[in-house]
């Protein structure tokens, strides 16, 4: 059980690292948001549940924490992205597609 937990935690840390790298490397706000949220959501969930697998008496608690991360992190990401689009932060030059106009009524 402990080795499974360690593997899951390691998997999560890889994703956290990739998220940090993405924030440094990607060109504009929206891409960085993607790196900063998708990667950290999966990374944090994996690390926390991995700890729960290592210590079985904490498992349900860690599952609950992971659930709340899963709820809050994408919402905050969405809010930041929408706010920056509304206040006119430009997209990167190499962006291919921008579908936000389709959703405006």
């Amino acid at each position: 059980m402990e080795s499974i937990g360690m593997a899951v935690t390691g998997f999560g840390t890889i994703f956290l690292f990739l998220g940090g790298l993405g924030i440094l490397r990607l060109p504009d706000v929206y891409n960085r948001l993607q790196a900063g949220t998708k990667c950290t959501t999966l990374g944090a969930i994996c690390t926390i549940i991995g700890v729960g697998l290592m210590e079985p008496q904490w498992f349900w608690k860690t599952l609950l924490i992971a659930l709340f991360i899963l709820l809050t992190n994408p919402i905050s990401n969405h809010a930041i992205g929408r706010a920056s689009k509304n206040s006119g932060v430009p997209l990167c030059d190499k962006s291919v597609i921008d579908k936000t106009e389709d959703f405006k009524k």
Partner: protein
Amino acid sequence: MKKIISFVLLVIIFIGIYFAVSQIPYGKDKMSVSKHYLNNGVKENGASNIVTSVVLNYRGFDTLGELTILFIGAIGLGVVLFGFETKGKDIKSPSLILNAGSTFLFPFILLFGIYIFIHGHLSPGGGFQGGAVIASGFLISYLGYPKKRISEKGIHIVESLGGTLFILIGLLGLLLGGYFLSNILPKGTVNTLVSGGIIPLLYVLIGIKVGAELAGIIYKLME
């Protein structure tokens, strides 16, 4: 020239700090007061969290001062922002995701904040932290529904009630126990929810007061 002056200043400061610190013998604890807290804190207050028993019992008066500072800060913010017009018209309505998310999360955040300040004498956390969590719950509900207002009067009433009851408990301690904020209630068994005498009661009041104050500050700043 500027760089040279700043370098000289840096050297002087470094030498001063070095001489001040080098006088202190390394690794010896001379703090008899903190030793007393560590050794007798659980016995005297019945709160298993030493930090809480120091903050609320040995230094309860200090905590009252901190509350006053926060209160004055909120008042000062109100004074500074008083002349500004409130412009709530150009706020764009939030998206469905944020809307639904804030509706769903708000009670859980409140619950979490209340948990933090009720368990302040058992686990890390306490009134100030729990109050901050509660205020963040109000912030998320504001982000979800910018048009909706909580009544400012209600905030003031809750805030004043918290502060007044804190002082009343302190005065009751002065009356019955001999000094301000003395622990008049029975201690109870350590590590249970009802223990530590007046400590959980005070923390609940602090949590309510801090939460109301910070929520008021958030609403004032957002307008």
